[in-house]
């Protein structure tokens, strides 16, 4: 048994594996398959100030080794989250990352203030959802707006603050540096890549929202590259995600520089993916006589 514990921004995780925001709800459905206490942490579905119905269906399309989604932040709103979901989650003996997805600075700040008064362990500020627009572009695609919103939320909470970055940018390292300078304690990446599929029989986009976010194994090489670049560019810890579907994928992501790893689409293929991946990581470490998973973080040697 290797030691799987990691530490991100001062928070201890029993292992590095965290179901990603949006695929795991608030854990209730997966708890019927495995105990949530097995997980390093749980990133909750993106929360907005008010309840949101999300986009019309269809909201999902399969793509080669991947998928598109356009759920569009359907959620019951921060108050219902605090009342109905968070207390239950906090009893589960795992780190809870509350994901914020406001569409204005004020909305994000107000949600952060409310979370600051709870026992939630970390806040993950999503500035990268392709559907959250401010003046035509998401906060996360420009350094100025990324920095501004991070600084505002930073002031609103003492909780460890993770900022979740978009891959749909020219330079993800510039954005990462901007949010670091604005006080983020960690960055998580990547959110989904904007994609589209068309039903050629009816000449309509498959997603009712026309475009959606691509994730799954297909995006893994892009995620590894971005995690590697960002880990070199900033000194705060990086949480890696994007296409991780096996223990060796998670090891690869950590060698690229991730201190912890989130699991998204893989859970649709295999509902046990997070616990399977934890188990596979352990097996790999044992087979390689590596005592602690922390030893591998950022150890890739570029040529």
């Amino acid at each position: 048994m290797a030691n799987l514990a990691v530490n991100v921004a001062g928070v201890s995780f029993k292992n590095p594996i965290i179901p990603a925001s949006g695929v795991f709800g608030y854990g209730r459905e997966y708890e019927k398959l495995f105990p949530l206490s097995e997980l390093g942490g749980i990133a909750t579905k993106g929360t907005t100030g008010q309840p949101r119905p999300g986009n019309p269906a269809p909201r999902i399309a399969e793509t080669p080794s991947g998928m598109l989604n356009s759920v569009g932040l359907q959620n019951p709103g921060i108050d219902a989250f605090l009342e109905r979901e968070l207390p239950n989650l906090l009893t589960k003996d795992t780190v809870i990352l509350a994901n914020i997805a406001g569409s204005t600075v004020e909305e994000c700040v107000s949600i952060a203030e409310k979370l600051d008064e709870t026992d939630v362990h970390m806040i993950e500020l999503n500035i990268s959802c392709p559907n959250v627009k401010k003046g035509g572009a998401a906060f996360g695609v420009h350094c100025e707006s990324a920095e501004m919103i991070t600084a505002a939320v930073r002031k609103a909470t003492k909780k460890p603050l993770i900022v979740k970055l978009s891959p749909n940018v020219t330079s993800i390292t510039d954005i990462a540096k901007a949010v670091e300078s604005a006080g983020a304690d960690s960055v998580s990446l990547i959110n989904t890549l904007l994609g589209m599929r068309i039903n050629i029989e009816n000449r309509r986009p498959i997603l009712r929202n026309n475009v959606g976010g691509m994730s799954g194994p297909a995006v893994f090489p892009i995620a590894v590259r971005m995690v590697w670049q960002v880990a070199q560019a900033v000194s705060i810890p990086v949480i890696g995600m994007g296409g991780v579907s096996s223990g060796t994928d998670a090891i690869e992501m950590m060698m690229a520089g991730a201190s912890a790893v989130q699991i998204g689409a893989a859970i649709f293929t295999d509902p046990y993916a997070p616990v399977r991946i934890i188990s596979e990581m352990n097996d790999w470490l044992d087979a390689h006589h590596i005592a602690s998973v922390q030893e591998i973080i950022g150890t890739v040697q570029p040529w």
Partner: protein
Amino acid sequence: MADGEISRPPFLLLKGEIVMAYEQMLVPVLEKQALAKNIYRMVLQCRSIAQQAACGQFVHLLPVGCTLRRPISICEINKAAGTLTIVFEVKGTGTDALANVRAGENVDILGPLGHGFTILPEAKHVVVVGGGIGNPPMLSLAQVYGERATAICGFRSANIVTLQDEFHASGAETILCTDDGTAGRQDLVTEPLKEQLAKGDVDMVYACGPRPMLKFVAAAAKEYGVRCEVSMEERMGCGIGACLVCACQLEREGKSVMGHVCKDGPVFPAEEVVW
């Protein structure tokens, strides 16, 4: 766990007891047949899933090479034998891969899932209405109600008429319709449905099929003031209610709510559906 079924490996770290409402496992295909061109019937050995399964629920199958699972309704439940029967049509890559699984090979199943049909133990007469590939899930209902059921099976044409022997064997009065008259009555399913409803003794109408058909069935039931449940489709991710992918607009107590086909459905009271 029965012979041949492979439930999840006991993960190194997995401790503590879980009360499973659904399970994911690899289960053997006991039988596979083509019922018509591109329509296959499969019998899966999955004792614990069959034990818990109810009419109208579905299973979420992972075809080889796919990222996403495919939802398929349960057609027959045999709790004694520990088997489920499914019937599916090849539509794209996923169902094609499923159709290539041979008897004796395994499929990756997650189930039973969703909210099934409401069974009325006291009902005297129920009508089950299937359209095309919507017929298979009606069979399990016919088998529950037997002679108390009238099964109306609608198909485009004779070449895709399936499961008629099984419907007859269930004891249900079975009325076959085709759009082109090549088998049974040349009628839409709503005609025989109205005849049944006109009898005045129908306690419940159940339906599965194309959306326009469901809409007409729901309207007919409403006209006669008879309770009606319909099975809906939507593209899915998790299949268990976590990802919110399978949204469908519902109206509950006058309020518009966003429901989810995998958890709140696939079976909905017809009056909740926003057509």
